[in-house]
């Protein structure tokens, strides 16, 4: 399907979604989401992140934790990737909470060379020596039955370190996306699939439908915690070609959809008008604003209007806060 047709269909679907209201199958439940102020990347927030994770009931003592940041590709001027200061704060928070093993792992979507991803010396240099960095693109994978039915893929080949972790923490960047409107925790799961199996980019997932792939992965992979780097996001023609958009917050939650929906609202989008988030609301809690319990900072402080491609302007909404 051509991009223009895809976007036309997506907009029609978004409008239909907005008119039809929420048809969720999951019962309402309170989904705490914490906003942690981080004005810039100069602060170590490991103590604060540990406190929030602990308050959310995340048990890490003795556990193997895998942090999955978003390293798509490196660009000297564009905030494409999860910032290493956020990764370090989260990794050190996990150590504070007694994790037996903390691994930062990523299967970068565009760059095959691991030097531009988790094996970059700048990341290594900022991490405690006990934290390991693992290139998920090159290595063993475990075949996991696809619990969704949208892509038609019978299985996903999940990088072994992800399959072997007790706790998976998704750590995306807050960005617009030129195909999907926004890319956040759910989309970030593309990076647990090794490039040697799926290629660079993971073109097979594109052909099966990016939205379908996001939704099938969301049904298949259990994510235990989510931390969105919204300190400086990306607006406009994301996830690569956009511009920096300072927001000044981290978004933390046990609930991936609640984190994504909240981040989308902070970006000025109505998550119920974003087709894949709406569809995820059929099986994940946290889409509806009334189900999200905001903790920490007041959201109005960070509310922003992310510029976006024309096609997605119909998915905007608010003010929400």
């Amino acid at each position, binding site marked *: 399907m051509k991009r223009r047709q895809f976007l036309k269909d997506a907009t029609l679907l978004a409008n239909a979604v907005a008119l039809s209201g929420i048809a969720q199958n999951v019962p309402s439940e309170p989904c705490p989401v914490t906003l942690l102020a981080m004005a810039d990347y100069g602060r170590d927030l490991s103590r604060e992140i540990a406190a929030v994770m602990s308050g959310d009931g995340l048990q890490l003592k003795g556990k193997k934790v895998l942090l999955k940041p978003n390293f798509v590709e490196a660009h000297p001027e564009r905030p494409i990737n999860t910032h290493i200061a956020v990764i370090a704060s989260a990794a050190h928070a996990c150590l504070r909470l007694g994790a037996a093993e903390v691994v930062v792992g990523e299967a970068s979507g565009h760059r095959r060379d691991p030097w531009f991803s988790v094996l970059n010396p700048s990341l290594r240099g900022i991490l405690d020596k006990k934290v390991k960095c693992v290139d998920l693109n090159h290595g063993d994978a475990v075949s996991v039955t696809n619990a969704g039915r949208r892509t038609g893929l019978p299985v996903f080949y999940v990088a072994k370190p992800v399959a072997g972790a007790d706790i998976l923490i998704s750590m995306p960047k807050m960005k617009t996306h030129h195909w999907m409107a926004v890319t956040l925790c759910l989309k970030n799961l593309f990076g647990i699939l090794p490039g*040697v199996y799926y290629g*660079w980019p993971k073109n097979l997932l594109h052909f099966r439908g990016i939205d379908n792939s996001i939704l099938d992965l969301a049904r298949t992979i259990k994510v235990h915690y989510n931390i969105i780097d919204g300190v400086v996001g990306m607006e406009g*023609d994301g996830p690569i070609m956009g511009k920096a958009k300072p927001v000044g917050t981290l978004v933390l939650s046990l609930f991936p959809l609640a984190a994504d929906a909240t981040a989308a609202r902070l970006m000025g989008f109505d998550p119920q008008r974003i087709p894949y988030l709406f569809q995820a609301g059929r099986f994940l809690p946290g889409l509806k604003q009334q189900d999200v319990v905001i903790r920490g900072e007041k959201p109005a402080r960070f509310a922003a209007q992310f510029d976006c491609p024309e096609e997605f302007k119909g998915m905007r909404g608010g003010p929400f806060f």
Partner: protein
Amino acid sequence: MRYNTFVLNILTQQPSTPPNPNPDLANLINRLTSFFLPGGGCPYYKGRDSSAEPTFLAALALFASGAPAERAKPLLSWVQTLQNMDGSVGVNPGHRGQGLWLTAQAAIVFHHYELKENLKRAQDFLLSLRSITISNDPRLKQDNTLAGWPWVPGTFGWVEPTAWSLIALHLSGQAGHPRAVEGRKLLLDRRIPSGGWNYGNPNLDDKELLPFWDTTGLALTALCGQAEIDRLRPSLDLVEKKQDKIESLCGLAWAVICLHSHGRDAGRLRTRLWNLMGSMAEEDLHVGNFALGVIALSQKKVFTA
């Protein structure tokens, strides 16, 4: 046999290339072989299982260094058992149907080690594997109707699998095959106008994308002697001009390989590559890229005829 020579012999066999200033190639080979697993293959990183790509590149590094054939035998046996009935080669014995783009690398190994029956089957598969084409998109100034090679069957053609497949076909005398001709057109079409290659498209919405050093080096190597030099010169000039910005093992290795293939001076890059490879921590050592570094430092033309 061609590969049954010793490490240092290769230096005297190629009088046109300056003697290697560093006698430690054998040490690098020893380090590389320390990653070989008892079952015959080689992992991407220490502690992981054997995978096709690092095994292929390690076998090619042994070939390039002139190591005795005996050292490559376990790798070659492992590689041969990985080949499927249709000639394709997958990512590992447990997932033989995945990562079939690796068939191109396997074909290069089969070529150099003169495993003719394996090579023929791999070639046949490569020629049957064709990326899908789509209609052109005004956002991308490129010809989407050209077919190259995909990462995964049934998907679009990308720079890297196309370049590996072209290398395999060129080495085995198939440069004139219509698939190779079209594949070269695709690679040339994906050049960034100011030089180099990204991993796929060269631009988006009139904005040039950044060149990647690995795909740039690989594409230049694949097109060496197979395209008008004027069409490659901006990319070669770019690699030379930006060489001090290249920091990764993979990037340095490809830069050396492509400049050497085109007869350009890669001396400074080689020195930096030597230094880097001599100081790499075990946990960071990507065995495939390390093997690529050995190939680059050997100065043997493994990827060009």
